[in-house]
């Protein structure tokens, strides 16, 4: 048996490798998506004051620190028994929209984009953001400015682009100034046009590559995302909705009750756990999250331009959930559009400049769950403390984790469909990586090809002994 190793998987966040196991005829038998990272936040947070978590947990991830910051703050609200004033909730949501804009825009233009814009088989030396800059400098600069715009919203509110300090238990630590509101509003229409440009590119690419989309990791699953009372897409707050492969509602629950619905499975070969819906068990209860999961779970979008795109989305599979993994890219840009529209709504809200930004009294509860939709999916923080507010138990289920089964399945399906062990090409292996990339995984959150790229092929005898090892670097 031969084994192909892709390590590290690139243009994703964090450390992963893929092993592809071939039979004697060179056909793919099995493939594994290994996440090689574990840092231990659940344990090393124990014994610390609960309110430190809003600063500790953003260090789980520098791409979506705001999601961890806010999920943490929401858990701390419940622990402390305080409810943030409306303005504080709006300001937290505004910061979250800034993060959605930067993260979704960066993923499309700078991480996954090179595959779509330059081609899966393009020279790996240029198949990256630098290649995009060379191929289309105007577009690349627009993309850089768009990402910078999202980061700027975060900095204006929280002082820093990465690891901002803003939310506190019961609210936020500073009101929004007129100057900052006006500065963000002054750019918002121009930046909306850049997102629409990206959306048009994504749609064009989908139309031109329908055959590929239809054979690239298409499979049924359940889907999860936060929604409002009418089933509208929500990213900051709401009920968790889980729908089945046909789009029928399985559950809609308060995040405080997540343990009733979500379990996690462990495999030997990955530091990333595999969440599943408890009532259906492992592995039948597996589901997908993130842009694909959210748009499949929601029944509407509440902002006008994104609502129009959502109609197109629902028509892709005749109203049923969209199953193709490459559709993630289109879904991500629909959400990008929603995020910037929602940011504008929030900035125009009459309460947004209020200084009523933190609740001052509450009844200490000592336990709480915080939940937001991080760019990559539903994020749960669960804290328990002693009577002095010192943490005794911390449980985190991060966005990318929910998609672990889906990424593993996508890797195996794409390897079986595209990898020919007898005539290996770099592009084949890049497609396997692209199956992971479509999910925009963030592996630091959750716990490297041929040609110029390094690859290791190991040949094992029937007794499992290593017979030959070929490496290219």
């Amino acid at each position, binding site marked *: 048996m031969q084994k192909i190793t892709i390590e*590290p998987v*690139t*243009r*994703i*966040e*964090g*450390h992963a490798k893929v092993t592809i196991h071939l039979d004697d005829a060179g056909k793919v038998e099995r493939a*594994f998506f*290994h996440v*090689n*990272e*574990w*840092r*231990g936040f*659940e*344990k*090393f*947070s*124990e014994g610390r004051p609960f309110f430190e978590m809003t600063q*500790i947990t953003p*260090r*789980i*991830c*520098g791409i979506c*620190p705001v999601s961890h910051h806010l999920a943490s703050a929401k858990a701390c609200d419940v622990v402390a028994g305080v409810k943030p004033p409306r303005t504080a909730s709006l300001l937290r949501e505004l910061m979250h929209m800034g993060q959605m804009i930067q993260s979704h825009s*960066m993923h499309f233009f700078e991480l996954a984009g090179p595959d779509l814009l330059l081609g899966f088989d393009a020279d*790996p*030396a240029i*198949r*990256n953001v*630098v290649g995009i*800059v060379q191929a289309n400098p105007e577009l690349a*600069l627009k993309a*850089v*400015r768009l*990402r*910078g715009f999202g*980061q700027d919203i975060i900095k204006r509110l929280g002082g820093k*682009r*990465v*690891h901002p300090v803003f939310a506190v238990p019961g609210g936020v630590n500073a009101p929004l100034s007129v100057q900052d509101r006006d500065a963000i509003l002054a750019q918002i229409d121009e930046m909306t046009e850049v997102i629409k440009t990206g959306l048009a590119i994504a749609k064009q690419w989908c139309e031109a590559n329908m055959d590929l989309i239809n054979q690239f990791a298409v499979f049924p699953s359940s889907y999860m995302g936060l929604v409002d009372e009418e089933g509208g897409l929500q990213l900051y707050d709401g009920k968790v909705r889980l729908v089945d492969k046909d789009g029928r509602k399985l559950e809609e629950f308060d995040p405080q009750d997540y*343990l009733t619905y*979500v*379990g*996690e*499975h*462990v495999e*030997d*070969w*990955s*530091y990333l*756990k595999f969440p599943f819906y408890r009532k259906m068990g*492992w592995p039948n209860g597996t589901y997908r999250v993130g842009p694909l999961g959210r748009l499949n779970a929601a029944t509407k979008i509440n902002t006008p331009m994104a609502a129009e795109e959502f109609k197109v989305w629902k028509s892709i599979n005749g109203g049923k959930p969209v199953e193709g993994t490459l559709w993630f890219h289109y879904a991500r840009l629909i959400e990008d559009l929603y995020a910037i529209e929602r940011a504008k709504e929030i900035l125009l809200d009459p309460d947004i400049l209020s200084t009523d930004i933190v609740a001052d009294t509450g009844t200490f509860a000592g336990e709480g769950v915080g939940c937001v939709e991080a760019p990559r999916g539903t994020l749960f923080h669960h804290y328990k403390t002693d009577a002095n507010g010192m943490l005794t138990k911390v*449980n985190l*289920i991060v966005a990318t984790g929910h998609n672990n089964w889906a990424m593993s399945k996508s890797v195996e399906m794409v390897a079986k469909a595209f990898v020919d062990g007898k005539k290996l090409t770099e592009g084949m292996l*890049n497609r396997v990586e692209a199956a992971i990339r479509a999910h925009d995984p*963030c592996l*630091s959150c959750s*716990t490297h090809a041929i040609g110029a790229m*390094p690859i290791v092929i190991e040949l094992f005898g029937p007794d499992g002994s290593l017979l030959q090892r070929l490496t290219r670097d």
Partner: protein
Amino acid sequence: MAKVKVATDWLAACAGCHMSVLDMDERLVQLLDKIELTSTPITDLKHPPKEGATVGILTGAISNTTNIEVAKQMRERCQILIALGDCAVFGGIVTMRNFFDMNEALKRAYVETESTVDGKVPCSEELGTPVRVCAVNQVVKVDIHIPGCPPSPDAIYYALSELLEGRIPVLTGDNLKYD
């Protein structure tokens, strides 16, 4: 003039330092006239070139055996090694794990967490083995330290600009921060 080759990688990191590199925005695009990005997490070149690179940048702490291998390879193949960010410089937030027994910490994550069902500690040979967390210079020689969680885009731009001018950067004022 030939472009200066730069390689970057991350160890036990949150990606925030690489985000801060991207946060140079238009200045990063300008820098690309003078530097060639070889292996980085945002390109598909996976290891520093065998013929070597001038500058190697590592972010994140040493937290497992794979991190040690990556750090050693970067050191061997780069003339100047930069430790970027508090995790690479000091070990950072992950060093909090050192206060706990490693097996207890692994058990908490993979067996005892309230949501885990029939858990076990992952132990496949495909995975790196966790080690006591430490800074990069405790494993390989580091030439330039740039602290910050993450360092500001200004600090990173200043450091790279100084290196391009042939000077070893000395961080002062707003460029030198530890938060």
